């Protein structure tokens, strides 16, 4: 067991060191998020990074009323996947937009981050899903 952990640890350590400052960009599992929990919060968009492999949205939000808004970080799938499963575009939101996000929070609950399930643009009521397992059929329009 110790040998197995050692070799996996060495594998991770190599990836960490080889990545330099970046721990690093990659296609990664989502298991650091708690799939047993689902949370919804409303807030103002700070920034969306429309990047591969994972788009991120930073929002200023209060998890509960009375709480001062803090920055939450939503992570989701690639721009290509979002276009397919949720009708997203690069300009779907801009800084300052009021949105509501539903997400699976990070297991480390105090870290204020989540795996996005869907986003609602409050000005129009339009909902943008973000589940890569949706729309698994050909000929989508």
């Amino acid at each position, binding site marked *: 067991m110790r040998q197995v952990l050692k070799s*996996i640890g060495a594998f991770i350590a190599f*990836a960490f060191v080889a990545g330099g400052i970046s721990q*690093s960009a990659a*296609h990664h599992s989502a*298991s650091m998020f708690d799939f047993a929990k689902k949370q919804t919060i409303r807030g103002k968009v700070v920034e969306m*990074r429309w990047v*591969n492999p994972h788009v991120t949205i930073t929002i200023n939000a209060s998890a509960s009323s009375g709480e001062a808004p803090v920055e939450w970080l939503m992570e989701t799938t*690639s721009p290509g996947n979002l276009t397919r499963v949720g009708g997203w575009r690069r300009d779907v939101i801009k800084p300052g937009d009021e949105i509501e996000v539903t997400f699976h929070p990070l297991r480390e609950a105090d*870290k204020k*981050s989540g795996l996005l399930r869907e986003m609602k643009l409050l000005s129009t009521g339009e909902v943008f899903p973000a589940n890569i397992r949706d729309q698994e059929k050909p000929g989508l329009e």
Partner: protein
Amino acid sequence: MKSATIGFAAAAVIVVAMVPSIACAQAPKKEPPVINPPPTAQDWADLAELPDWSGVWNPKITDQDAQVKTNPPPWNEAAARKVAQMFAEEKAGRPTLIFANCLPEAHPSWMLVTHNAMEILFTPGRVTMLGESDGNRLRRIYTDGRGHPQNSDPTFHGHSIGHWEGDTLVVDTVDILPEAPLAVSEAVGLPNNGDMHVIERIHLADKDILHDDLEIIAPHILTKPWKTTRIFFRQRARKFDIFEGVCATGDLVERVNADGDHVFVPVQKSEWGNTTAVPAK
């Protein structure tokens, strides 16, 4: 005197005659270069006879998920122990980052666990597969009748040669880097450790469904060849055209510096790959 002179002259002639062969024995024999012939008009016309694999192909991720349980690779004992540990770590919320540094998922793991679209191009003597999320997903399959090279020159996607059997492309790939993982998910996979050999039969299963029937031989980590079919479904709507995606931008954010220059600045990531903080504007 005379005979000595003749003997000397004869010896000299022999030596001079031998010089070219001595020189040849020391210098390596030069192979004539292989030149890829330019395609003919017929070669281009022949492409029209191939099945239509145009469009954008999305992987069926729910099937990838299902096969983790229904069709696991026949791992050998040492590999099975490591794989079990990786599943446990993932379940505990600490998924191993097997695809780090924006390196390719490589062959065959790109086919096995990708979450991103791909497209397939036909040109004379070649089938080329291009994946979304930048040029680190690129397979060149040579269909010009060549064999595998004599000298080993391992790469992430290996050396692939293919031929058509009716509407099925049969592909043989060898010379994959031993570091390339054999993955069943984004958090579970092991380096193949060399000598991996992949045979594929790629064909349409329906009008807009592509199957890649893989047979994966990895003697250092599997007890026997592993067979699996991976499913892709086609999109033609222009909005789903594959757009440039550079994996390393996942580590970066666009900012304007004090000089007014648009630059990339690093974000913070966890050891498992998720973004943890983005620097303020």
